[in-house]
């Protein structure tokens, strides 16, 4: 399978009051055509910033892409400027954000905003754009699509607004969709609708999807592969089924252990990860997870390991102790009952 997206050694740096902060550090991975990749991490893990970097939307002048290459099809996106990048952004790679109410313009109708995307990238008439917009709304499951073209964002519910955002993202037949926490602001029954919708569209339109989330449950049911991020690093990456059954990084293992599960009776207490996420402005040379890690030792505090291929094809991990973690002393799948 050909790689659709190939990221090599991406580092994104911000200038802050506390000094320089690397929000994304040395991130490398590739996405195959037609796959759904989950990106999991907490706030400050770099998961959103790395997605913005792909789109060249890192807020300047504070944020800068320091190093790296982002290969999409035949070109390195980081070498594209101005109009060339605009031809990729929104046309070949589209993004869906968390909060549809702040991503939609409140003074224009849904139809106007979809038509605007279409006419920006495609050479089509106003009339053709209108019928294409109606088709798109129909595709994302909005009833009475033609009527709805005339609705303003405030007249739509949260779930409907997110469907409009998805319709806009799909407008120009993009190859890659990046969805950044698209269901976090939605109720759980609406979230289920949106997840089902994306699953259906992915198959029907043969999309490649990157889904960024803090919710391990969503990724479990949706993605083929997952990148687990912590403090700007991808600490573990591999097949969802493999990683959830046998996490090799102590952070992944800790996350899976700390969340209660709806399908199980819980006995006793939860097992949280101690401590809290680090201040990115004060990271040393060591592993950023070491202070919270039960395996942390002097080497961990001194030196961050490189990404290492582990015992499974396509699985990589950044931990000196992954063999201990994998050997199950922190088995996340065990029932506490």
């Amino acid at each position: 399978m050909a790689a659709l997206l190939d990221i090599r050694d991406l580092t994104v740096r911000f200038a802050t009051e506390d000094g320089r902060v690397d929000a994304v550090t040395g991130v490398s991975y590739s996405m195959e055509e037609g796959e759904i990749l989950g990106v999991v991490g907490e706030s400050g893990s770099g998961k959103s910033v790395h997605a913005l970097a792909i789109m060249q939307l890192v807020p300047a002048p504070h944020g800068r892409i320091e190093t790296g290459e982002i290969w999409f099809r035949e070109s390195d996106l980081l070498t594209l400027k101005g109009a060339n990048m605009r031809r990729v952004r929104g046309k070949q790679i589209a993004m869906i954000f968390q909060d549809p109410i702040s991503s939609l313009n409140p003074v224009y109708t849904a139809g106007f905003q979809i038509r605007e995307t279409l006419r920006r990238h495609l050479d089509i008439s106003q009339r053709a754009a209108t019928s294409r917009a109606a088709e798109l709304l129909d595709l994302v499951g909005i009833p009475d699509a033609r009527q709805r073209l005339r609705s303003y964002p405030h007249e739509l519910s949260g779930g409907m607004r997110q469907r409009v955002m998805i319709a806009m993202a799909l407008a120009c037949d993009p190859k890659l969709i990046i969805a950044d926490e698209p269901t976090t602001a939605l109720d759980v029954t609406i979230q289920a609708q949106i997840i089902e919708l994306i699953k259906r569209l992915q198959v029907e339109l043969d999309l490649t999807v990157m889904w960024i989330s803090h919710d391990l449950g969503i990724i479990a049911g949706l993605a083929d592969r997952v990148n687990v991020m912590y403090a700007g690093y991808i600490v573990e990456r591999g097949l969802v089924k493999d990683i959830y059954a046998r996490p090799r990084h102590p952070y992944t293992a800790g996350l899976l252990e700390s969340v209660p599960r709806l399908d199980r009776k819980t006995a006793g207490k939860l097992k949280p990860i101690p401590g809290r996420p680090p201040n990115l402005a004060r990271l040393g040379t060591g592993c950023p997870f070491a202070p919270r890690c039960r395996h942390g030792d002097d080497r961990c505090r001194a030196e961050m390991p490189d990404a290492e291929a582990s015992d499974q094809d396509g699985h990589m991990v950044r931990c000196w102790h992954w063999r201990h973690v994998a050997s199950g002393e922190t088995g996340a799948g065990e029932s506490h009952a």
Partner: protein
Amino acid sequence: MLLQAKPALVKAMPERPVMVEVRRLKKYFPIRRGIVFARKIGDIKAVDDVTFEIHKGETLGLVGESGSGKTTVGRALLRLLESDAGEIILDGEDFRRLKGKQLRRARRRTQMIFQDPYASLNPRIPVHGIISEPLEVAGGHSRKELRARVDELLDMVGLDSSIRNRYPHEFSGGQRQRVGIARALALNPEFIVCDEAIASLDVSIQAQIVNLLEDLQHRFNITYLFIAHDLSMVRHISDHIAVMYLGKIMELAGRDEIFDDPQHPYTQALISAVPVPDPEVEESRERIVLEGDIPSPANPPPGCVFSTRCRMAMEICSQKAPDYRKIEIGHYAACHHAAGAA
């Protein structure tokens, strides 16, 4: 009333006394039109005929989607909002009818922990001031006593007393929530409403705060109303769970019963919508995806409020609202279908 049959409500457990009893509670918000000659044109029935009870030292989880009225129930219970009808009995006292000194005394026994630890702590007051404020309002403490009590409270919530002079902005979300909990504990409350108390925290921090809340409950026999939309966490922390939809309780049962044997189609759909962090389970799960959105609470559907989205809806469902009644001991539901299952 349904819940008046107090004995035999909880089966196996030794009977604990009832701490909070809510009967037919209603809170309507008027919808007005016009500015100068404003007139009422309708009501939003945020809480419509809600009945439940919580035993001492136990946790009732209250779940529902946005607009279901769960936060309004919490606020009405503490009289942060005045309700329109019904009864709130706190430890045998008719809380809704208390006034003046009696009300102030009763209020000290209740507290609230808020969702957003960024918005609920005054940024211009240092930690010791935030925590000692309720003690100062209550009065009767010397400076020395206050200081000792603040240190004790910080210790209880797992914070070092050396942080007493620092300000909220210096802390992470989890630490701020601990400060909020320390303040809530200052006057030894017996009943605490936790309104989405962990919703704004990172996943790895949520479990820390939930463990803390549970420890405190065991140490001080505190009763919780735990309002949340995260069903997994609610299942973990609660003894009983109530599911709300458009101002009404759809179902109430013991925490394991409601997941093992949900009677209401809404509860069933809600449970099936929650993703489980296990790819094998997710693959084989059957999902009930509800159609459409929650109707506007200003204009709820006739009959059963859930009937517009219910996959089991019959003719009667859109005509007559089902009674909220007992299915089994400790298990209540408001559904015409649940009758057959009884």
